[in-house]
């Protein structure tokens, strides 16, 4: 797993790059190019978009345009409230359920667990029509709670935490009980601290998922007050709105910047968390 700890030994002489190296780099350049292009476009006047002049004048005007044409500050706030709320609620709900699945003799536990796993395949967005109706009956249309609530009882989170809790030795639990801890104290003082890496991994995956989610938030929101960044960006850059492309790239960068910066800073943790979260 330690991909970043070992580096290729530096060769003392300049060698001709192998075919493999050339192919790997070519693919890398193709893969990063769209993003680099968006960067370039965002910092240059729109008339240079096509001919890609290297010495075209730099400008920040696209960003100020984008910022003034759509309430990005509000979108940031909404997305921030959404991801923190969802992740917090997921942690609580999934921890309780995972604890029950890992340690308690609930009748019909295996069947119940299979029922939970169904949600790995039947996502809230597949059921948008009925979920919309339920959200509207609960008065959750156009609220941030409405965007987040269907995802709170996450089968994935329950599964991941259950697996982790199961690996924790019972002796630790017994020791805590001798100290006079009740079940919730045991959960809080023994299980949760030992599962910290799992929480980190799951948290990162969850944050990036909800930061990026679009279809369900689009359906359930209809005004600026509750729209997250992705939906705001989608509305902003729809081709029929006739906003110019330099402005759209600036807006695009604005909405991906926090996540992208976080990714660049914590690249290794990000990748590891995807790994941890993916392999079951």
């Amino acid at each position: 797993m330690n991909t970043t700890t070992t580096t290729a030994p530096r060769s003392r002489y300049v060698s001709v790059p192998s075919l493999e190296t050339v192919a790997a780099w070519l693919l890398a350049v193709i893969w990063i190019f769209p993003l680099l292009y968006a960067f370039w476009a965002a910092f240059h006047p729109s008339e240079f978009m096509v001919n890609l002049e290297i010495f075209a004048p730099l400008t920040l005007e696209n960003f100020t345009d984008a910022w003034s044409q759509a309430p990005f500050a509000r979108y940031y706030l909404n997305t921030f409230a959404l991801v923190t709320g969802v992740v917090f609620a997921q942690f609580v709900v999934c921890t309780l359920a995972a604890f029950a699945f890992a340690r308690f003799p609930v009748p019909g536990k295996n069947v119940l667990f299979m029922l939970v796993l169904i949600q790995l395949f039947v996502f809230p967005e597949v059921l948008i029509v009925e979920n919309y109706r339920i959200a509207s009956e609960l008065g959750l249309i156009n609220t941030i709670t409405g965007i987040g609530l269907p995802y709170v009882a996450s089968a994935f989170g329950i599964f991941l935490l259950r697996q982790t809790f199961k690996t924790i030795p019972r002796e630790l639990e017994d020791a805590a009980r001798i100290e006079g801890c009740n079940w919730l104290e045991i959960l809080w003082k023994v299980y949760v601290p030992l599962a910290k890496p799992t929480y980190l991994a799951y948290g990162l995956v969850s944050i990036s998922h909800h930061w990026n989610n679009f279809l369900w938030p689009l359906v359930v929101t209809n005004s600026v007050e509750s729209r997250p960044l992705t939906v705001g960006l989608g509305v902003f850059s729809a081709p029929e709105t006739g906003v110019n492309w330099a402005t759209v790239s600036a807006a695009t960068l604005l909405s991906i910047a926090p996540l992208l910066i976080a990714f660049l800073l914590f690249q290794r943790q990000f990748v590891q968390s995807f790994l941890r979260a993916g392999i079951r």
Partner: protein
Amino acid sequence: MTLTAHGKMQLYGALLLLPAAVLLAAFAYLPTIMTVINSLFLPGFRGEPAEFVGVENYQVLFDDPTFWQVARNNLLYALGTIPTSIALALGMALFVNGKLPGRGFVRMAYFTPTILPMIAAANIWMFFYAPQIGLFNSLLETLGFSGVNWLGDPSVALGSVIIMSVWKEAGFFMIFYLAALQSIPPELKEASDLEGTGRWSFFWRVTFPLLMPTTLFVLINSLINAVRVVDHLFILTKGGPNNATNLLLYYVYENAFSFFDRTTAATITVVILLVLAVVATLKFTILDRRTHYQ
């Protein structure tokens, strides 16, 4: 009434499950059941009760050529994205698993699209695909070819959408392959080197079979994504031109929220649920049996 210790544990466990159970019932089970029920009824007009019509909604749907076009698109989309992105992911993983100058950068470049929201990715690709001023066409014209209407030509549009999806997904799957590659014991490579096995046959005889569980895992994920992820259509094509890029879930969205035809939306949703049920069965039978060492 007093509870035994075991009974107390049972009750406590049930209480711990309660919040998750309520939420799952509200946003997964109940909506699934309601969707199936709605697909069997026609809504009553002006307050009249809904009328049970059995499979009639399905007959109507199956007689609709648009539905078949959308289903076919989705199949082509799956066939276009899945093998390509899996093959690319494997290639990327092999590249960055070996000794490579600038490996950190290369790996980051592959993985970056995964972090972007689909909407943002689609925004960027809009620049490439635009007919007059788009980058692809200006490149083609510089080289003396005539431009292509990437998203407006019904025979090309789905391909353009597929290319973008492959770009978005390959780096994500790479991560899983990379993990699998690093779990292969180096002794195998050493042994094969001693026997003078070529790199190519080592890959096909040793590495590739060992990566089988990962391939199946990635395959399941990509199958699900092929039905579930439609965000890019909102920016790139809106399912057009003439439904050439419409996919099942987008068609559900259109029926429900543009045409206000909840019955058709429910009927298509049941079709999607059946597809997902097949994928789930695939996972729980084949995949779980084969991934013995994970």
